[in-house]
């Protein structure tokens, strides 16, 4: 066993190194599925927006297939679908991703999970990456999701993106205090 390399903060001055062209596009226009946008704002415990955060997301394509060599569960991922998104917040702490509604993927009990995205949060003042998940408030399968059911009911709402338009969702992240987003130990 080799000792793991520890995490360190992203620091404030990362954008020239980590911001990628079209990083907000998780699925190309040609990708199959219902096109959606996911926007949000990230705030600290004083409700200050974070102008220096990096949000990374990872999701399955519309058929529930990950574009990853480690996904052996189905045949091929949609070639127009990437699955990874990375966006730095703007001066108002906001971010936006363009993607397709993720399909359902197998869960720990063999039953399908509700559509979701894995979210990693990095910023100055965050030493070790924070991990959460984004679910969609209008998905009927949320009630049977094995991961969501582990979250205390009173806090589950922090993981549900609100539908703010026909194909637009809003997912705000609160790092601390009232309405604090649920973060995971995986």
């Amino acid at each position, binding site marked *: 066993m080799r*000792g793991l390399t520890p995490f*360190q903060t992203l620091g404030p001055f990362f954008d*020239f*190194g980590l911001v990628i062209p079209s990083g907000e596009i998780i699925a190309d226009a040609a990708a199959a599925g219902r096109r959606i946008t996911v926007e949000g704002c990230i705030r600290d415990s004083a409700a200050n927006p974070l102008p220096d955060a990096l949000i990374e997301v990872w999701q399955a394509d519309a058929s529930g297939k990950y574009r990853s060599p*480690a996904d052996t569960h189905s045949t091929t991922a949609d070639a127009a679908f990437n699955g990874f998104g990375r966006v730095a917040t703007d001066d108002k702490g906001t971010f936006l991703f363009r993607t397709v509604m993720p399909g359902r*993927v197998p869960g720990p009990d063999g039953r399908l999970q509700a559509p979701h995205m894995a979210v990693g949060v990095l910023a*100055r003042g965050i030493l070790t990456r924070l991990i959460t998940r984004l679910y969609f408030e209008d998905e009927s399968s949320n009630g049977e999701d094995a991961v969501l059911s582990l979250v205390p009911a009173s806090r589950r709402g922090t993981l549900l993106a609100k539908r703010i338009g026909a194909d637009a969702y809003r997912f705000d992240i609160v790092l601390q205090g009232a309405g604090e*987003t649920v973060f995971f130990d995986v």
Partner: protein
Amino acid sequence: MIYRKPPEGTHPPNDSPGYKSTALRHPKEPLVVIPQTLTELTGPAFPYGRIETSDSDLTRQHEGEPQGERIIVQGRILDDGGRPIPKTLVEIWQANAAGRYTHRVDQHEAPLDPNFSGAGRTLTDAEGRYTFTTIRPGAYPWRNHDNAWRPAHIHFSLFGTSFLSRLITQMYFPGDPLMPFDPIFNSIPDEKARQRLIAGFDLQVTKPEWALGFTFDIVLRGPDATPMEK
């Protein structure tokens, strides 16, 4: 297949009072323990774009040579089972020799270098090796506490084999007198883990008449057992 949990003390707690910016930015509620599912056990194989050779030589990204001490930083990306991770993206970013970042918000009164941007990326080879040529970054002041200075460091970003192996870290230089005073470096509870962030000076990597060499191996979370053959 399950990824091992990081041993206690390896990663810094997000509530680290010595590093002031953590005060309003760390969750106070306990983390919710969840199982590892296909979502976490997969990850982007190659997140974006083409990689040019100049992407891994930060001294060759402009017309002229950057100021400062030329260095070579090389190493291997492994998982905690000792398996090399081939074809994985390694991204770095850093300050220039004067301790200044090419970032609009960096107000440190030190010169920018028109011949140095300070960002690089590369893919590991079949044995998990990577190499960058760059400039030794300078120390710089920050406002965390009175007379606070960051030790010289290079930021690293790694993907590895899944969402769980993702790592953002910083590489430090051996013998830097600022390390004992740095709350970010010292936020790592385990002394041995902390020492893993210090690159080794390496005469084998040093190129005569050209550049000092440093070795920095990086170990990412990996699966607990070799996956069963299908």
